[in-house]
C-alpha cells in the first residue's frame, strides 16, 4: 500500500475550505433535534401570562380569585408577590431596569401583568382569561419624535427625579441617553464649505427577528440541593447563568444553565425576559419544574424588537463627487424600558460604523435614545450591533448624493471607497478597519451582472414607460457594506462588566477522537460542523472524529455567546489557539517518540516529520496514543488545552451587492429579477455553510426591506401581531440568490476568518431599498421609506403622479 499523498491526506481531514455537509442536519432533518419544549420532566407545571390590552394604563386593581379557583391552577403571581424578593424589576444590559410584572402601570400592549401557574397549558390559558385587571387608560405615545415634545406624557414614573441616565444627563422625562462620536466642529466646518450637500430623514422601521422557535424555558429548582437548573433558548447561556445567580442569590456553581438545540435566534434570544424570571420564581416557590413557552403573538409583541431608528443623514461633497463630511443625528426608539442588547459602553451599538466603506475625512454622529409606549428591546437582528441601521443609512444617503450630483451610484461609490493601500484604515468615527479590497469587489460585482448594460436597459424601459408602452419601471440597487463583527476586544467591549472574550476547550482521547467545547451557542449556524473543521486543519485529525458541544454551562468554558457574528472571530480563534497549544505539546511527544529534537520536526498536514526525511514521522493519531502511554520524562499525560481569546480588534467583513427589480406601478408589486451578492469574509472555513448563511441572511434582508414591520397604531395597538401580517417569506416569494466571493483574510485573526452570518442582512437591506428607490429616481423622488410593500410602493408612485390617466 502506498502512503496517501499530502493532498489526499488533507482532503480526508475535511478541514478548512471543505464543503463539508452539516453534521447537525442528520438529527434536524429527521425531526430528532432536542429543543426546550421537547423536554418533559415529571411533575412539570406550566406558566402563562396575563398581558395588558392597553399601550399605557394605570393598574387600579388585580383580582385573581376566579383564576385561582379554577381546577388545576396552582398560583397566580403578580408584582406584589415579586416585590418582597426585589424581583418585580430586573436589570437590563443597558443599565436600565425592566418590569418583570407590571406594578402600578403598564407601558406597552401585551406587557406582562400576572403569571399563572397551572398543572397543564390548557388550565393556565383558561385561568389567564379569568384574571380581572382594572385598568385606567392613559395617553399613549408611540412616535419617538412626539415622545420628546415638552408636554408629552411621562412614561417612566419610576424614574422621576433621575437626571442621569446610563450614559450621561437625561434631557427630557422620556429621554434615555445621548451619545456622540466624531469631530463636531470639523464636520460643521466642512458642511459650511461644501459645494454640495444632501440631507434626508431615513427611518428604519421597527421589525422583529421572529425565529421559528419562540423564546421559552424550563426552570427546575431542587430544594434539597438548593440548585437551580434552567433549560432555555439562550444565545448566551453563561451570561444568563451569571445574571441568574446575581439576581436570585443562588451561588453560581449551583445554577446550571443549559441551552439545548435552538430553532433560530437572530438576536431575539440574547436578552433575559420576564418569562424566565417568573418560571424560576415559580419553580422555587412550588419545588416543581415550570415550563414557559411563548406563542407567536407574544414573541412578536414582547420579546425584543429590532431597529426603530430614525436617522437624519447629511453628506457634504465636492461637485466632482468627492465626499468631504458626514453628519448623522439619530432618534432611537427603545420602547418602554431600555433593554437594548449592546456591549455596555455602546448604547447605540457600533452605529459609528455609519461612515461605511467610504473615506470620509471628517464625520460626526449623535444618537438620542427615547422611551415610548412600545415593547422594549433593540436587539441586533441578524447584524452586529446597529450595523444594519448604519449601512442602510449610509447606502441610502450615498444614492441620494449620486442623484443630486447626477452621477451613477456605482461610480460615486468607486470614487469614494477606501482604497486597498489605506488598510488598516482609521475611520473618522474611531474604528480601525482590519483589511479590505473594496474596489476589486465592486468591480467584480459590476462585471458579473453586466452593470452598464443594465443601466442601458433601464433607460430603454423608462422611455417605454413614458411612452405609455409599459406600466413597469426597472430599478437597479447597488450597495457596498462594511460589517463590524467579532465583539470584541476587552478594552472596549463588555457585558455587565464581563469582557467579551470567547473560549474553546479541546480534549483529545487516546484513540485520536476529540471532544471540544466552546462558550458560544449555535442557533442554526452550523458550529458543530465548522469548529470541527478548524480543529481538523490545526491538528490533522479528521473532522468526523471530532464532536463539538456548546450550551451546557457546567461543561463548556465560560463564553459570551453567539450574536453579532462573533463566534468565528472569537471562539473560532480560541479554537485555533487551543489547538496550537495541543500541537506544541504533540511536537514534543513526537520528538520523544522519534528520538530527535523537536526543532528538527516540521508539521505536515496530519503529522510531524523529520525535516529532510519525510519517511520518518509520527501521525497525530500515534501521538494521541502516546500522550496517554509514553510521554517524555517530566511531562504530564493527556492532550488537551483551553483558550480564552481576547480579540485584538473587531473584524470587518464586506461585500458588494447588486439587485434588479421590476416595479408594477399600478399595484405597487415589486418583483426581484436578480440579486447578486459578493461577500468577503476573509478565510472561508466551509463554503457551503457560508452560502447557506448568505441565503438565509439575504432572505431576511428581503423580508425586512419588502414587508416586515411591527406597526403600532395611535392607541398603542400592534396592528399585525401574527404571521398572517408579519412578513416571513416562503420559498415562493424568496428571490433566487447569486453568490460570489473574494477573500481578504483578517490580519489579526489566527486563521484569517472574519465572520459571515450577518453580512447579507447588512448589505441586503439597503440593496433592495436602493433598487426600489432607483426605479423612481428619474421622477425626482429621493427617498421612499421601508418596508417596500405593495401599498407603500403604489403610494410613492401615486405621489409622483404616475397614476394620472
Amino acid at each position: 500500500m502506498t502512503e496517501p499523498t499530502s493532498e489526499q491526506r488533507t482532503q480526508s481531514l475535511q478541514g478548512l475550505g471543505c464543503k463539508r455537509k452539516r453534521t447537525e442536519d442528520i438529527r434536524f432533518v429527521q425531526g430528532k433535534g432536542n429543543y426546550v419544549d421537547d423536554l418533559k420532566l415529571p411533575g412539570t407545571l406550566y406558566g402563562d401570562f396575563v398581558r395588558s390590552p392597553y399601550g399605557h394604563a394605570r393598574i387600579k386593581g388585580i383580582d385573581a380569585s376566579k383564576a385561582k379557583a379554577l381546577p388545576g391552577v396552582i398560583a397566580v403571581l403578580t408584582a406584589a408577590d415579586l416585590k418582597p424578593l426585589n424581583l418585580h424589576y430586573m436589570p437590563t444590559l443597558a443599565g436600565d431596569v425592566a418590569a418583570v410584572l407590571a406594578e402600578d402601570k403598564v407601558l406597552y400592549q401585551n406587557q406582562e401583568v400576572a403569571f399563572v401557574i397551572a398543572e397543564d397549558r390548557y388550565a393556565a390559558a383558561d385561568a389567564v382569561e379569568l384574571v380581572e385587571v382594572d385598568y385606567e387608560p392613559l395617553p399613549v405615545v408611540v412616535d419617538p419624535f412626539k415622545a420628546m415634545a415638552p408636554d408629552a406624557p411621562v412614561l417612566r414614573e419610576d424614574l422621576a427625579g433621575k437626571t442621569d441616565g446610563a450614559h450621561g444627563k437625561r434631557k427630557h422625562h422620556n429621554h434615555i441617553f445621548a451619545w456622540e462620536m466624531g469631530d463636531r466642529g470639523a464636520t460643521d466646518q466642512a458642511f459650511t464649505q461644501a459645494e454640495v450637500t444632501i440631507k434626508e430623514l431615513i427611518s428604519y422601521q421597527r421589525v422583529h427577528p421572529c425565529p421559528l422557535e419562540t423564546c421559552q424555558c424550563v426552570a427546575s429548582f431542587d430544594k434539597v440541593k438548593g440548585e437551580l437548573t434552567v433549560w432555555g433558548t439562550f444565545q448566551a447561556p453563561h451570561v444568563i447563568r451569571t445574571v441568574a445567580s446575581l439576581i436570585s442569590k443562588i451561588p453560581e456553581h449551583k445554577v446550571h444553565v443549559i441551552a439545548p438545540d435552538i430553532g433560530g435566534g437572530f438576536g431575539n434570544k440574547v436578552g433575559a425576559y420576564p418569562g424566565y424570571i417568573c418560571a424560576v420564581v415559580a419553580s422555587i416557590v412550588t419545588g416543581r419544574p415550570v415550563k414557559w413557552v411563548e406563542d407567536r403573538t407574544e414573541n412578536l409583541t414582547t420579546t425584543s424588537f429590532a431597529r426603530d431608528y430614525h436617522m437624519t443623514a447629511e453628506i457634504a461633497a465636492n461637485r466632482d463627487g468627492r465626499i468631504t463630511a458626514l453628519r448623522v443625528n439619530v432618534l432611537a426608539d427603545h420602547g418602554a424600558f431600555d433593554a437594548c442588547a449592546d456591549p455596555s459602553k455602546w448604547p447605540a451599538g457600533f452605529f459609528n460604523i455609519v461612515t461605511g466603506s467610504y473615506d470620509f475625512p471628517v464625520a460626526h454622529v449623535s444618537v438620542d435614545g427615547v422611551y415610548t409606549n412600545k415593547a422594549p428591546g433593540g436587539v441586533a437582528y441578524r447584524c452586529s450591533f446597529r450595523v444594519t441601521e448604519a449601512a442602510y443609512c449610509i447606502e441610502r444617503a450615498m444614492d441620494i448624493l449620486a442623484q443630486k450630483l447626477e452621477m451613477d451610484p456605482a461610480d460615486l461609490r468607486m470614487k469614494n471607497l477606501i482604497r486597498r493601500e489605506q488598510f488598516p484604515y482609521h475611520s473618522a468615527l474611531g474604528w480601525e478597519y482590519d483589511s479590505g479590497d473594496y474596489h476589486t469587489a465592486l468591480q467584480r460585482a459590476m462585471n458579473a451582472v453586466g452593470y452598464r448594460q443594465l443601466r442601458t436597459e433601464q433607460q430603454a424601459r423608462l422611455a417605454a414607460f413614458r411612452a405609455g408602452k409599459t406600466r413597469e419601471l426597472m430599478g437597479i440597487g447597488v450597495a457596498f457594506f462594511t460589517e463590524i463583527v467579532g465583539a470584541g476586544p476587552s478594552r472596549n467591549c463588555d457585558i455587565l462588566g464581563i469582557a467579551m472574550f470567547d473560549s474553546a476547550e479541546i480534549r483529545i482521547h487516546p484513540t485520536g477522537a476529540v471532544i471540544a467545547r466552546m462558550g458560544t451557542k449555535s442557533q442554526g449556524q452550523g458550529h458543530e460542523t465548522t469548529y470541527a473543521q478548524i480543529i481538523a486543519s490545526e491538528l490533522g485529525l479528521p473532522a468526523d472524529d471530532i464532536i463539538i458541544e456548546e450550551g451546557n454551562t457546567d461543561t463548556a468554558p465560560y463564553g459570551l455567546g453567539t450574536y453579532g457574528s462573533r463566534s468565528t472571530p472569537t471562539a473560532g480563534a480560541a479554537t485555533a489557539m487551543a489547538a496550537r497549544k495541543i500541537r506544541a505539546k504533540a511536537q514534543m511527544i513526537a520528538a520523544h517518540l522519534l528520538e530527535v529534537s523537536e526543532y528538527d520536526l516540521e508539521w505536515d498536514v496530519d503529522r510531524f516529520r523529520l525535516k529532510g526525511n519525510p519517511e520518518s514521522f509520527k501521525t497525530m493519531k500515534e501521538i494521541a496514543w502516546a500522550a496517554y502511554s509514553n510521554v517524555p520524562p517530566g511531562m504530564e499525560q493527556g492532550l488537551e488545552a483551553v483558550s480564552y481569546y481576547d480579540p485584538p480588534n473587531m473584524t470587518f467583513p464586506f461585500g458588494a451587492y447588486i439587485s434588479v427589480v421590476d416595479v408594477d406601478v399600478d399595484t405597487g408589486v415589486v418583483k426581484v429579477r436578480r440579486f447578486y451578492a459578493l461577500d468577503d469574509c476573509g478565510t472561508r472555513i466551509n463554503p457551503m455553510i457560508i452560502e447557506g448563511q448568505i441565503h438565509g441572511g439575504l432572505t431576511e434582508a428581503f423580508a425586512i426591506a419588502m414587508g416586515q414591520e411591527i406597526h403600532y397604531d395611535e392607541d398603542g395597538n400592534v396592528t399585525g401581531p401574527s404571521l398572517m401580517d408579519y412578513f416571513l417569506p416562503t420559498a415562493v416569494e424568496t428571490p433566487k440568490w447569486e453568490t460570489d466571493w473574494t477573500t481578504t483574510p483578517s490580519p489579526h485573526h489566527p486563521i484569517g476568518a472574519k465572520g459571515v452570518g450577518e453580512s447579507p442582512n447588512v448589505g441586503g437591506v439597503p440593496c433592495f431599498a436602493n433598487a426600489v428607490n432607483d426605479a423612481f429616481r428619474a421622477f425626482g423622488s429621493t427617498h421612499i421609506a421601508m418596508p417596500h410593500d405593495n401599498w407603500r410602493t403604489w403610494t410613492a408612485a401615486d405621489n409622483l403622479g404616475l397614476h394620472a390617466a
Partner: protein
Amino acid sequence: MIPAAFEYHRPRSIAEAVAVLADLGEAARPLAGGHSLIPMMKLRLAGPEHLVDLGRIRDLKGIRTEGGDIVIGAMTTQQELIASDLIAAKLPILRETSLLIADPQVRYVGTLGGNVANGDPGNDMPAVMLCLGAVYHVVGPTGEHRVAARDFYLGAYVTALDPGEIVTAIRIPLPPTGHGSAYEKLKRKIGDYATAAAAVVLTLDRGVVATCSIGLTNVADMPLWAEDAALALVGTNLDTAAVKRAVAAAEAITAPASDNRGPAAYRTKMAGVMLIRALARARAQAK
C-alpha cells in the same frame, strides 16, 4: 394559541348532524376543514362549546353534474376542486381560484362549504359564487331549502344561515361554452387573503360583450356582486372608456377596511386594477 375546552361530535349523516346542531343550539358550530374555525378558536375569538365535525358524512362529498348545473358537496376540499377534470373543463375559474387560496397544506383540508359558509369577506370563493350565480343547498331542522349566493351574505361573519343549519352542497349553473373567466387576486405572499380580488365571467358575441358578471373579494365587509360594473360592459367591445366606466362603478360599491394590506383608498383602487386585469384575461379566453 390554546383554545378553550369544547366537546367534539362526529355525526354520520346529514340528518344526525342537523339533529345534534339543533339540540345544542348556539353553543355548537359545524366543523369542516377547520382552517378558519380552529385558528379563531386558538386566538379565542371563537369559543364554541361543541364542535360538530362534518368530516364523516359521505353525502357531503363529491362533484357531479345535474342537468345544466354542477353540484359540489360542501365537504369537497379545495384540493379536490383543483384535481377535478370536470371542474377544469367546465368551471376553470374554480380551479384557478382554489390555486390562489392559502397553500397546499391548507387546501388539502379546507373545504368549499366551509369557505362559502364562513362569512369572512377575505374568503375567495364567495365572490366567485356571486359571479357565477351559485345556489347553496341548506338543510336545517325544518328541512332543505336553497339560498342564492347573492342573497346569502349579510355582513362580516353574518350569513343567511340560521343556527342549526348547514350548507350541504353548492350548485353552480354552467356558464355557456365559450365563456371567458378569470380570477385576479392581489396578495402579499403565499397564504395571504386578498388585498383585493376580482372574478369575471363573460361571453362575447363577435367581439361584443353579450353577458358579464363580476364579483369582488375583500373590499367590503362582505363579498360584492358588481352588477352595475358588469352592465357598463355589456354591449361594448371592452374599449378603454367602457372599462373605465366599469371600474368606476366597481370602485363605487367598495368599502374596504384599512389594514396592513393598505389603506382603504388603495384597496379600492386595487379592486379596479384587478378588475381590469381579470377582464383582459377573460376576454382573451372567450370564444
